[in-house]
Structures are given as C-alpha cells and as structure tokens.
C-alpha cells in the first residue's frame, strides 16, 4: 500500500492584508519535501494571491508572489483556480501569473500549472482528497 496521500491546500484570502496567504505558501513548500500528491485550490479572495505584477514595496512588505513560480520545481503542478471567483472580481486568467512545470515523462516539456475550473469541478476536486488544509 502506498503512503502517498492526496493533499489539498485551500486558499481563500487576499495576499498582504492578512498573513494567511504567506503562511499557506510556507506550509506548501515545507510539505513538498514529503513527496505527497499535492494540489492547490484558489477560491474566493484567494485568486488575488496569483495576480501578476504584485509590488508591495509601498506597504513595507516582502513580495512573495515570485515563489509561486517555483512550485513547479517542487512537483506541485495542480493549481486549481475557480472560474466564478475570478469573474466576481473582474479578473481573468490573463491577470494571473503564468505558472508552469516541466514534465520529465515528456522530455521536460513545459506545461501550464494553472487550471481554471468551475465551482462544481472544484467541489469534485475537494471530494477526492485525503487531507484538506485551509487558509
């Protein structure tokens, strides 16, 4: 029997206004060392975490958004973004960072990590997990 469990990290907060987004990212990176089957979900205000062009220098905080681009190197390549959440916020996938990973089974072909899914698809993804961590 395999020890690999399906982990889902659910992100529902804006970056910077509270510490949730940064804490989630840190736990994801720590968890990546344990070689589990990791997925990330961005729903509600969580979709703001992935916007491109973030510059929090004016509010005296560290820009942690470049770290999302490193997730592919940790084999974290299932990043689900909820369509309804984007739409309610006047955002599209073009407002988000382009996150990719390299598939070693296909000669390191570069593939997109972000998958925009509907709320009902997101519900199915949540239903398939062994462990859900919420931020």
């Amino acid at each position: 029997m395999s020890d690999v469990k399906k982990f889902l990290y659910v992100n529902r907060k804006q970056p910077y206004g509270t510490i949730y987004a940064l804490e989630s990212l840190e736990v994801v990176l720590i968890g990546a060392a344990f070689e589990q089957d990791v997925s990330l979900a961005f729903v509600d205000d969580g979709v703001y975490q992935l916007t491109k062009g973030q510059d929090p220098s004016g509010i005296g905080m560290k820009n942690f958004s470049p770290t999302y681009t490193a997730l592919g190197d940790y084999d974290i390549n299932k990043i689900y973004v909820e369509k309804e959440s984007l739409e309610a916020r006047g955002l599209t996938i073009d407002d988000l960072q382009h996150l990719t990973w390299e598939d070693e089974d296909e000669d390191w072909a570069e593939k997109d990590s972000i998958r925009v899914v509907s709320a009902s698809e997101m519900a199915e993804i949540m239903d398939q997990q062994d462990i859900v961590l919420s931020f």
Partner: protein
Amino acid sequence: MAILHTVNKSPFERDALESCLKHALAGSSVLLFEDGVAAAVDGTAYADQIKGAMENVSLFVLGEDLKARGLGEHKLIDGITVVDYKGFVELAGKNDTVQSWL
C-alpha cells in the same frame, strides 16, 4: 459635518463596505485601503453598487495597496481617485471626523 469613511476589508468577505455605503451621507468621502481596494476594480460583483454611491459620495483608493495586489489603475472604476499615504493623511485632515468600518 464632513466625514471620511475608511474601509479596509474585502467586500467579498465582510459587509463593511456595504454598511459604510448605507451610512455615508451625500458629500462625504470613502477611502478604500488594504483588502478593501478590491472594491475599486471595475467589473466586480460590487462595481454597480460603488458606481451608484459615487453619485453622492467621493471614492478614493490607496495606490500602494492596489500595487501590492497587482491591481493596475487601468482596471479601476472611472472617477475613483487614487491617493498615496500622504493623500490619506490629507483626507483625514480635511474632514471633521474619520470613521473606520473595520
């Protein structure tokens, strides 16, 4: 009496903005900052509510918090004034009271 209302919570998470707009009298000012800046973007579920309120009150948004979130000024609702921290202080000074919708 002139009041500066400030909203620092996301409209998608809390009802602070909604309550603020319900209580802001004509001629008063509303400043969005921190997570509240999400409401300044056009095309959101709250855009119509903001536009309606702007017939009576002046809307401001803190540029530093927009920039932090990667929300460009070109995405904003027309007529919202972007201010910096200095502008925030000036607004507070210009008005008689500041009411924070936490």
